[in-house]
């Protein structure tokens, strides 16, 4: 189509050079199948989990080979001893309880942080004061490591969940608000006008138009702040031990280091990684494919 146009304009001076023509469309039914199913190997390679597991397999092999060669189980235990220690900690060492302690505090802090962030950002898009406030606060507190507030939190709230939750809120609220707010400001003018045209205002407008339209940014914020919260929690437990009474995963790692049970330290770290990995791949990936990918906002 385009080519023929080009030809037309260039040959304007001598149009008789090339004759015009029309053509019959060829019968394609003889070619046979236009669609062909992919081979089994190609289909297996297309599965996300298979490719990721393959990478993990390579990493574990490297680990095992290196550790066996190093021959220093105190400093660098092998993959297999770590797995055995992991299993042992699960069955006898109360690792499950420790995971639960950590996760519970984490979820408390994460939810509270999301709520605080929702209030801040909604205030920020509805009023100019709110937006000034949010910008100032994020500029001030986002660079401040949440863990740095822990000594203060312990003074104010004492040992226990409260000070942990306080620190976690701080870890969650700034990155999440920053992402959400920038998502809100990026919602197209047309969508806003459509929402107002059909009579949406106030909170209904925020929930029915702004939040779904800004969802890609909000999701990024949720992911980033999840990681921040998880990190902060483990660090806090490591540094301040049993600040919540019976000790979580960080405490498990710290305890085993003191007893020079390095395989168990590895097992503790392993658990932290697995939980982080699992949440990212199961929870957030699922939300992504159910929302922004389905809506065509993200490929």
């Amino acid at each position: 189509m385009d080519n023929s146009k080009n030809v037309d304009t260039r040959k304007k001076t001598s149009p008789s050079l090339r004759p015009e023509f029309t053509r019959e469309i060829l019968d394609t039914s003889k070619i046979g199948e236009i669609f062909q199913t992919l081979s089994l190997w190609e289909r297996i390679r297309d599965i996300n989990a298979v490719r990721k597991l393959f990478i993990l397999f390579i990493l574990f092999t490297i680990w095992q080979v290196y550790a066996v060669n190093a021959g220093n189980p105190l400093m660098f235990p092998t993959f297999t001893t770590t797995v055995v220690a992991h299993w042992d900690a699960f069955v006898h060492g109360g690792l499950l309880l420790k995971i639960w302690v950590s996760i519970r505090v984490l979820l408390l802090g994460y939810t509270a942080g999301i709520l605080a962030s929702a209030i801040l950002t909604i205030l920020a898009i509805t009023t100019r004061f709110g937006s000034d406030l949010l910008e100032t606060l994020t500029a001030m507190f986002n660079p401040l490591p949440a863990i740095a507030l822990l000594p203060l939190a312990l003074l104010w709230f004492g040992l226990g969940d409260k000070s942990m939750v306080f620190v976690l809120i701080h870890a969650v609220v700034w990155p999440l608000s920053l992402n959400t707010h920038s998502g809100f400001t990026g919602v197209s003018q047309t969508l806003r006008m459509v929402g107002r045209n059909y009579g949406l205002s106030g909170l209904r407008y925020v929930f029915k138009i702004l939040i779904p339209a800004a969802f890609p940014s909000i999701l990024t914020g949720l992911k980033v702040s999840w990681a921040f919260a998880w990190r902060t929690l483990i660090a806090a437990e490591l540094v301040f031990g049993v600040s919540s009474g019976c000790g979580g995963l960080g405490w498990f790692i710290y305890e085993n280091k003191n007893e020079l049970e390095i395989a168990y330290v590895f097992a503790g770290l392993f658990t932290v990684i697995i939980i982080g990995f699992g949440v990212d791949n199961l929870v957030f990936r699922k939300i992504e494919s159910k929302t922004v990918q389905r809506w065509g906002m993200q490929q």
Partner: protein
Amino acid sequence: MPQTYQKPLTAENYSQEPLLNVEGVTLQYKTKEHLVTATYKVGFKVFDAERFVLLGPSGCGKSTLLKAVGGYLKPVEGKITLKGDVVTKPDSGRVMVFQEFDQLLPWKTVKANVMFALTTSGKLSKKAAEERTMAYIEMVNLTDFAYTYPHMLSGGMKQRVAIARAMAMEPDILLLDEPFAALDALTRRKMQEELLQLGEKSGFTLLFVTHSIEEAIIIGTRILLLSPHPGQVKAEFNAGTLGYDNQGQNEFKELLGKIRDMLFSDAVEEETISTKGS
């Protein structure tokens, strides 16, 4: 069938009160550095079942004027009344269709997009809303795509959904802001034909913004010509008898020529002014 629209234009309609009355409207908006006057003392009347076209070169404030009728912008001077009530804010009685394809909510299917408009306004029960939604989706021939998401539709189909959504509200007046400008020529022509057919079926009142003279004559029953910088009323023409089939006829060509000359004279004037200035 969900049809409650008025009958097509008759001589009697003209003796009635206008549906939309725009009187001496001056519109201004602020940019970072300037206060721009988009239109200056523009007035016109739109009656029931008319297809009223705002035509003019870019920069004549026709889109701004449409936004003001939509209630997104307050006139600095003059007033806009619909059925005697002064327009102050956006309302589902004046539904707007935009040029941009992103006016559909990407997180809702075609059906949910149309239905959301009906249910948020709280006019209809869920069942009634669903029935009306499907009726209008059928009217724009998209029944097969009712459960697809907007990003899987072509540009023309998206505009059809937007028009269906707007029509489903059965508003007093439909506001169309160059709805076909971003489409290819072939699809645009098809959409124009479809819009006219929809008009025949439902007898809606239309306020249509375009910069294409042909489109204005084909779509419109009455055309308002605006001058640029700032927009002022230059002329009004009747084009109710002219459509696609008349394109080769003298009457069509005459009107086209007349409008083109008037627009062209603006361009020439502007050029002489700018050369004098420099």
